[in-house]
C-alpha cells in the first residue's frame, strides 16, 4: 500500500495534537481540582451536583429557620415557667387566706399581694423576643396582646400563630397564642364547677367534686340536664334538681359526706342551714387572669360568710391549679417542638454531610487517578514526538550521491 509523504506527516501531527489536548484536559482537572468544568464534561453528573447543591442550600436555610424558632420557643418556655411560679405563689397566699380566723383587713392585705401577682402575670403575657415582638400575640405581635381594664385582663392578639418550616416536609408553630396559654383554661374539674348560693346563711362549703362516670354525666347533659342545684330543706336533707326542675336524687347529708348524682360526686363540709343551695354547673373556660382577679374580689368582699368564702377560695384555687396545668401542657408542647427542631437539625447535619460527600465524589478530581493519567499521557506524547523526529529523517534522497 502506497503511503504519501503527506499522509505520514498529517497522521503524526494529528496524533500529537490529540495527545496534547488530552494532556491539557488532565492538567486542568489537576489544577482546578474539579472533574466537571462544564456540564458537557459529564452532563448527568453536573445535573446531580446542581441538584445536590440546591438541596444543601435549602437544608441550611431550614436550619436557620429552626434556630430562630428555637430561640423564641425557649423564651416562651421561660415565660410559662415564670407564670407557673407566680401562680404557685398565689396558691400559698390563697391557702393563707382560707383561715376563718383572719380579719377582713388581713384578707385585704393578701388581696393586695395577689394584685401584684396579677400585674406580674399580665407582664409575662406581654413578654417580647429580642426583636421586640410580643411572644403571645400570635400574628398581632407589634402591640401588647393583654390589656387590663378595671379588674379584667382581655386578649387582643390573633388566634393564629406563625408557622415555621424546619425541614422540607415539617412545619411547627413558632409559639402559642395568648388565648391558648392564658385564656381558654377549663374551669372547675374540667367537667363541672361548683359554687355556693349567694344567699346561703349556713357554714357549709362545697369541694371541687369528681366525675365518677363521665359517660353518664355527658348523657344527662346531652339530654338537657344543665346546671344542677343541691337544695337543703333542713341541715340534713337535700334534694338535687336539674335545670328543668326535675328532681334527680335526694337524701340525707352528714358533715363531710358526699352527694352523688348522674355520674357526678361532690363533697360538702360543715353544716348547711335550711334554704341553702349549691350549684353544680357544666364547666366552661376562663382565663388565668380571672382566676386571680376572682380571688382578689372574693378576698376584698365584706359580705360573705365563711362557707361562701371557703367555697369561693377553693374554686379560685382550683382555677389557679387548672392554669398551672394548662401552662404545663403548653410547656410540654413547646418542649416537644424544641425536640422536633433538635431532631430536624440533627437530620439536616447528617444529610448535608452525605450530600457534600456525594458532590465531592462526582465533582472533585481523583488526584491519584489523574496524576497517573498525566504521566501516561506525557509518556505517550513523548514517544510520539521522538518517533516522529526519527522517522521524519528517513528519505531516499539522503542516499543519492552526486
Amino acid at each position, binding site marked *: 500500500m502506497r503511503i504519501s509523504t*503527506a499522509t505520514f506527516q498529517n497522521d503524526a501531527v494529528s496524533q500529537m495534537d490529540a495527545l496534547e489536548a488530552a494532556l491539557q484536559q488532565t492538567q486542568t482537572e489537576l489544577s482546578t481540582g474539579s472533574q466537571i468544568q462544564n*456540564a458537557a464534561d459529564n452532563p448527568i453528573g453536573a445535573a446531580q451536583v446542581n441538584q445536590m447543591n*440546591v438541596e444543601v442550600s435549602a437544608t441550611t*436555610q431550614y436550619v436557620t429557620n429552626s434556630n430562630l424558632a428555637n430561640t423564641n420557643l425557649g423564651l416562651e418556655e421561660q415565660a410559662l415557667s415564670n407564670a407557673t411560679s407566680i401562680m404557685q405563689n398565689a396558691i400559698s397566699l390563697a391557702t393563707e387566706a382560707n383561715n376563718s380566723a383572719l380579719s377582713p383587713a388581713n384578707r385585704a392585705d393578701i388581696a393586695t399581694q395577689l394584685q401584684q401577682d396579677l400585674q406580674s402575670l399580665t407582664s409575662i403575657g406581654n413578654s417580647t423576643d429580642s426583636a421586640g415582638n410580643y411572644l403571645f400575640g400570635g400574628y398581632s*405581635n407589634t402591640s401588647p396582646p393583654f390589656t387590663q381594664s378595671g379588674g379584667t385582663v382581655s386578649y387582643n392578639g390573633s388566634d393564629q400563630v406563625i*408557622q415555621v418550616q424546619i425541614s422540607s416536609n415539617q412545619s411547627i408553630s413558632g409559639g402559642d397564642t395568648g388565648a391558648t396559654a392564658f385564656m381558654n383554661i377549663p374551669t372547675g374539674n374540667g367537667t363541672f364547677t361548683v359554687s355556693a348560693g349567694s344567699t346561703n346563711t349556713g357554714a357549709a362549703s362545697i369541694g371541687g367534686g369528681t366525675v365518677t362516670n363521665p359517660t353518664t354525666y355527658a348523657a344527662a347533659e346531652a339530654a338537657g340536664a344543665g346546671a344542677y342545684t343541691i337544695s337543703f330543706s333542713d341541715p340534713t336533707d337535700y334534694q338535687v334538681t336539674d335545670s328543668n326542675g326535675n328532681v334527680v336524687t335526694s337524701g340525707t347529708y352528714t358533715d363531710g359526706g358526699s352527694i352523688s348524682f348522674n355520674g357526678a360526686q361532690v363533697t360538702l363540709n360543715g353544716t348547711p342551714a335550711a334554704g341553702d343551695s349549691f350549684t353544680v354547673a357544666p364547666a366552661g373556660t376562663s382565663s388565668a387572669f380571672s382566676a386571680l382577679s376572682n380571688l382578689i374580689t372574693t378576698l376584698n368582699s365584706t359580705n360573705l360568710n365563711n362557707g361562701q368564702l371557703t367555697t369561693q377560695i377553693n374554686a379560685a384555687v382550683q382555677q389557679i391549679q387548672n392554669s398551672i396545668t394548662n401552662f404545663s401542657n403548653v410547656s410540654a408542647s413547646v418542649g416537644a417542638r424544641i425536640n422536633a427542631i433538635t431532631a430536624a437539625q440533627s437530620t439536616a447535619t447528617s444529610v448535608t454531610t452525605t450530600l457534600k460527600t456525594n458532590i465531592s465524589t462526582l465533582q472533585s478530581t481523583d488526584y491519584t487517578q489523574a496524576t497517573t493519567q498525566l504521566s501516561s499521557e506525557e509518556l505517550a506524547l513523548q514517544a510520539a514526538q521522538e518517533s516522529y523526529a526519527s522517522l521524519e529523517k528517513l528519505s531516499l*534522497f539522503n542516499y543519492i550521491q552526486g
Partner: protein
Amino acid sequence: MGDILSTSVSGLLAFQQALSVTSNNISNSSTPGYSVENIELAEQPGVGTGGGFFGNGVDVQSITRSYDEMLASQVRSSQSSYSSFSTLSTQAAQIDNMLSSSSTGLTATLQSFVNSLQSLSTQPASTAQRQVVISQAQALTTELQSYQSQLETQGSDLESQIGTTVGEVNTIATNIASLNGQIAAASGSGQTPNQLMDQRDALVDQLSQYVSVNAITQSNGEMDIYIGSGQPLVTDGSTQTLTATPDPNDASESDIGIAAGNGSVTNITSEINGGTLGGMLTTRSQVLDPTVNALGQIAVGLATVMNQQQAAGMDMTGAQGKPMFAVGGPQVLPSIANTGTSTVDATITNLSGLTTDNYKLTYSGTAWELQDTTSGQSVPMTGTGTSTDPFVAAGMSIVVNGTPDTNDNYVIKPTAGAVDGMSVLLTSPSQIAAASLGTASAATANTGSGTISTPTITDPTTWTSGTYTISFTDATDYQVTDSGGNVVASGAYTSGSSISFNSEQVSISGTPASGDTFTVGANTNANSGDNTNVLAMAADLNSKVLDGGTASLNDAANNLVSGMGVLTQQAQANATAQQSVNQTATNTRSNLSGVSLDDEAAKMLQYQQAYQACAQMIQASQTIFNSLISAITSG
C-alpha cells in the same frame, strides 16, 4: 543509424520530460490539492521490414494525474460533516460554559431567592428581610438578562457569520464556474488540463467546508455543483447566487435562498446541511432558539407564580399584594408578505401548558392553523379566535381581529421575549404581601376547644372581603353564613379538613362545641406577623408548575443546564468521530494522489539512468556514423 538516432533522441526527449514531471511532483510535494502527475509513455508505431517490425522509439502520450472522484467525494462529505459538528460544538460549548457554573448559576440563584422568602417567613414584618427578598429578585432578573444578552450577541454574531459564509460560497462558486470555462476550452486540445483541474478540486474541497456539496463532472470536463437537496449552484457555465435575506417574519434571522437567473429567490434554509453553514443553521434552531425560549419559560413561570401569590396576600401597607415581576409577553411576528388586514394578539393563560417551541399561525383560506415550527407538527386549537372565545393552544390564548388573506401568517414565540421585558416591579420592601388577605378568629364565648387556621385565598379575582360566620349547629355539623345571613356552605365537621367558600379556604381543628362560632373576614392588620402567604410563595416555587405539572422552576433550570451539556458533549463526540473519518478519507485520497518523495526519488534515478543511457546511445550512433563516413571518405 538514423533509426538509432531518432529512437534515442525520442528516448532522450521522453526521459527529459519524465524528469520534468518528476521535478514538478517533487516541487509540489507540499502543495495542498496537488495530485501526483504521471507521464504516460507509449511505444511509437513500428516499421515493418522483411526482417521484422522495428520499433521507433518512445512517445509521450499524456500527463495524467492520479485522482479518484469517489475518494475525493468521500473527503468532501466527511469534511462537511466534520465542519458542521465542529461549528455546532464550538457554539454549543459557549452556551454550555455560560450556563455551567454551579455556584453562581441559575439553579443557585433561584434557590437563593427561595431561601430569602423562607428567611422572611420567620420574621414577616422585618423590613431588612423584605429588602433581601427584593434584592434577590433583582439578582435573579439580572442573571437571566445577562444570559439573554450573551445569547443575543452570539445570535447576531452567528447571523453575520452566515452572511459572510454565503458571500464566500458565492465567490468560490464564481471561481469554479470560471475554471469550468477554462477547463472546457483547454480540454478541446485533447489533453486534460491537470493544473486547472487540481485548482478546481481544491475550490470544491474548500466549498465543502462551508456547505455539503454534490459535484458531478460532465463529459465536457465541466463540473456541476449542487447543494442542499439538489439545488444547482454551478451548472452549464453559469452560477446561481446563494442569498442570505431577512426572514419575512423575523428580520433578525437570515433565510438562505437561491436566486435564479430571473431574480426570483427560493428559500432553501431547511435544505441546507453540512459545512459551517449547516452547523450555524442547526445552532440557531436547535441551540440558540430553544435556550432563549427555555430561559423565557423560567422567567414566565417565576413571574406568574409570584404575581398570583402576591395577589392572594396583603402587604405591609394593608393593600392587596401587587405583581412582583413584569415579563415580556409572547412575540407575534407578522410576515412582511401578509396582504390581509388581520391583527393577532397572544397572551399566556396556562403556565403548565407552555412549551419552549416556536409556532406559526397561518390562514389557510378557510381557517387559521397553528404549526409548531420547532417540531414541524401541527397543533390543534380550541375556540374561535374572538376575544370572548380565543384560540387556546400551547398555554396561550390567541385573539385574531380583522380579515386575513390566504397564506397570511404570523410567527408566535411564546417565551422568547420574556426575559428582555423582565423587571422587578416592587420598589419598597413593604410591598411584599407576606400575610393572607383574610383573617379568622374564634368567638371568645366559645366553650369548645376548636381553633381556626388562617384563611388562604384560592382565587383573588373572585374573592370578596365580606365577613362570614362559621357556626356549629352541633358538635359535628357546621354552617357558613355571609353577612346577610345567607348560608353559603355547610357540612359535617372533621378536625383539620378544609372548609371552602368565597374563593377561600380555612380549616378548624380540635373539638368545637355546639353553638361555637368562628368569624372569617378581611385582614385589616397591616403590621401582621402573618406569614402564610410568603410560606405559600416559597412552596409554589418548589412545586411542579411547568410542563404539565412535571417540572418545578428549579427542575427546568437544571434540565436546561444538563440538556445543553448533553448536546455539547454529543456534538463534540460527533465532531471527533467525523474528524477521524475525514482524516482516514484524506489519507486514503492522499495515498493515491499525494506525492511520495521516496517514490519520486526512485523514479528520478530511473529516468536519469535511462536518459544517460539514451545519451550514450546517441554518442554510439555518432560513432557508428563517423565510422561509416571515414570508411567512405578514406576509400
